[in-house]
């Protein structure tokens, strides 16, 4: 089987409201940056796969007006309307055919141009969910309460995730929220939708991300190190939240199983060195520990409390601070990939994990109630 991996990565600065740049400029800057990282010119790129969303951009066919900015002019191109990590997956499958040497993967979202609540409410069907005013926050809150009730988890357990990730984010120079928070501060922050509070919810972030993928042959010819894609899994489960068990995520389980199978990972906690996951809400992290197969149902908080997933632990999760420190819509998952690449290549300056790392999992999700999940196993 062909070897495919990542040779360069970049993301934009993250900010809650970037009024200094249009989305076109945001995308142009990140494309330029990733090409510089790779030491390549746009003419050397074979194909571009982007990720963006019409509703976020307030523009139908959100890739139409940014073709020039992402360097896709007169190139083979496609766009997924999912997180950038799904675009990476699509690029991976295309590169496996041997038809291309490389692919630029880019994603962008300037959510502050609209309001996140409108974006998530418009993701609801018009008959059963949208009239309720359901949003990403209230959806997650309903799920959090199911999780808490089933396993006896408390607000303190959720808050502990935020404390860990904000502490880790505070040493990551690239992220948005760089200040640590205490348990007391988290629990005293305003309730958004009970039991979720401001500080257990990801911030609003404008941003873009990009990676350049290549085949092993191409990387070697150019003398570039390759962060190998060893396996990818993705899955979607039921739509209507009343129809499924919200204390876990069937699609996250299926995605992880598929990725582990391809990468021949049998015991993820032992065989992987760390993970970056898209925990847009603090409790997602606990739920995902379980769904991604790192502990049994309800044991997520034990894993956290024992320090297993902390910076010095045996299986650090979100050493970058995760989505709770920066949550660029349409790019949050691809940024997890970027963070894995930094750690794996020893370039996470200031927040490099103390232990040597060779293999990691990056996770992305899409949709309300964790309906769609994606897992990528990366290795060097």
């Amino acid at each position, binding site marked *: 089987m062909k070897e495919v991996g990542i040779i360069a990565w970049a993301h934009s600065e993250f900010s809650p409201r970037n009024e200094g740049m*249009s989305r076109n400029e945001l995308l142009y800057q990140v494309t330029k940056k990733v090409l510089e990282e790779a030491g390549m010119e746009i003419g050397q790129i074979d194909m571009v796969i982007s990720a963006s969303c019409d509703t976020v951009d307030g523009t139908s066919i959100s890739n139409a007006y940014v073709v020039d900015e992402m360097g896709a002019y007169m190139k083979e191109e496609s766009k997924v309307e999912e997180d950038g990590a799904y675009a990476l997956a699509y690029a991976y499958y295309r590169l496996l055919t041997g038809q291309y040497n490389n692919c630029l993967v880019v994603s962008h979202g300037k959510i502050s141009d609209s309001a996140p609540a409108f974006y998530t409410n418009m993701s609801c069907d018009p008959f059963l969910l949208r009239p309720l005013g359901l949003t990403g926050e209230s959806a997650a809150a309903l799920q959090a309460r199911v999780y808490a009730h089933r396993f006896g988890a408390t607000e303190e357990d959720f808050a502990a995730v935020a404390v860990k990730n904000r502490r880790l984010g505070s040493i990551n120079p690239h992220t948005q929220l760089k200040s640590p928070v205490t348990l007391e501060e988290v629990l005293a922050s305003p309730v958004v939708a009970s039991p979720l509070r401001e500080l257990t919810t990801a911030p609003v972030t404008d941003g873009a991300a990009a990676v350049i993928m290549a085949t092993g042959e191409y990387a070697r010819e150019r003398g570039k190190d390759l962060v190998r894609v060893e396996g990818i899994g993705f899955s979607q489960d039921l739509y209507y939240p009343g129809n499924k068990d919200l204390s876990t995520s069937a699609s996250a389980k299926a995605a992880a199983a598929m990725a582990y199978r391809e990468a021949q990972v049998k015991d993820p906690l032992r065989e992987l060195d760390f993970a970056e996951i898209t925990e847009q809400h603090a409790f997602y992290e606990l739920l995902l520990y379980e769904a991604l197969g790192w502990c049994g149902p309800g044991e997520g908080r034990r894993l956290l409390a024992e320090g297993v997933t902390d910076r010095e632990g045996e299986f650090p999760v979100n050493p970058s601070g995760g989505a709770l420190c920066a949550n660029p819509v349409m790019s949050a998952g691809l940024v997890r990939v970027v963070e894995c690449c930094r750690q794996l290549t020893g370039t996470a300056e200031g927040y490099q994990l103390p232990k040597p790392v060779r293999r990691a999992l990056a996770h992305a999700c899409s949709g309300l109630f964790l309906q769609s999940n994606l897992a990528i196993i990366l290795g060097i």
Partner: protein
Amino acid sequence: MATKVAVVGIGMTENKSRWDLSLPGLYRLAYQRALEDCGLKSEDIDAVAFGHSPEYFEGVNHPEKWCGEAVGALNKPLFRVHTGGTVGGSVAIAAYYLVASGKFEVVLAISGNKLNETSSAQIGLSTVYDPIMGRQFAAGAPSAVAVQASKYYSQYGYNEDHGLMVAVKNRNNALKNPYAQLRIPDYTLEGARNTPMLCHPLRLADMCPTSDAACAMIFAAEHRVEAITDNPAWVLSAVAVNEGINYVDRDWSKPIGLRKAAELAYERAGIKDPRRELDVVEVYDAFSVQELIWYEGLKLCDWGEGGRLMESGATRMEGDIPVNPSGGTLCANSIGASAMFRKAEAALQVMGRAGEHQIPGVRRALGHGWGGGIQFHTIMIFGKDKP
């Protein structure tokens, strides 16, 4: 080396206004018909590439989440592709590559739209225009294509009649296609000339209708094909190429993106003389005049010769290079499914299953898609013989 891939099943819904089915219901109909077409079951599908055009058509963001289980994507890999009018083509191409990668054996491509869910698809289409530089004067798709048409007609000494000739050809072809929306008997050039002018130089006759429709194609890896069908359509190439929207010196009447896509597609399919080696072509003619321009992009003739190719009769059903025997997008346009209909029609021609509008003896067929700001092009070429 890429796995060889064939189309083994196709499901289409009729193009019309659909007040009887919800959006998931419409997708489900195409999905079920595709399964029935090749005798597969839901559990035989490994992954789904899901297509849907701008969200401002139905007002539902991420419709793949709502519609996934209706197309059997329950705890299955699914991602959504969205490239505007080309989406049906981009989704088929995505499904092709998923199988060609060797990681999936049977993949469903499905795409559609319910354009009647909004009171005017053109309001949605106006949001394609850039919000800072363009939306202020946007009037949907016709205003852009009218500019393209004027440029084309004046540059090569053609006139409105050349577009209307396409309309007459395709509307008459559509009479043989039960899935087409506009099936108007005795459609004549004289009648077309008398339709109202909507956006100069485009008349009502030059424009596609508003349809609700979905289309599904099932792609299978070589080692699975034989057990599913003895009549597959092999994928010879699958290409999508972009032009930039604001590129300096851009000429809408000269689709260099399509030309590049065609050259790549022909090279990968081993085709040197497309006019001779292709037996039938389905192009995305949302507006009549575009068919002439796409002839040129596809190298069926030289730049500027599209109108004369039309006049020669070569692209009629009985000509040497029939184009749009199905009636094309000009007779049925849901946008979301249209570019896939072009691919599916081409595949059906190769299978010899196109029904009344079957062209005899087809061995190679091309399906095209157009989208974005007159900038995206998709091409798939299918063959009767395994590549």
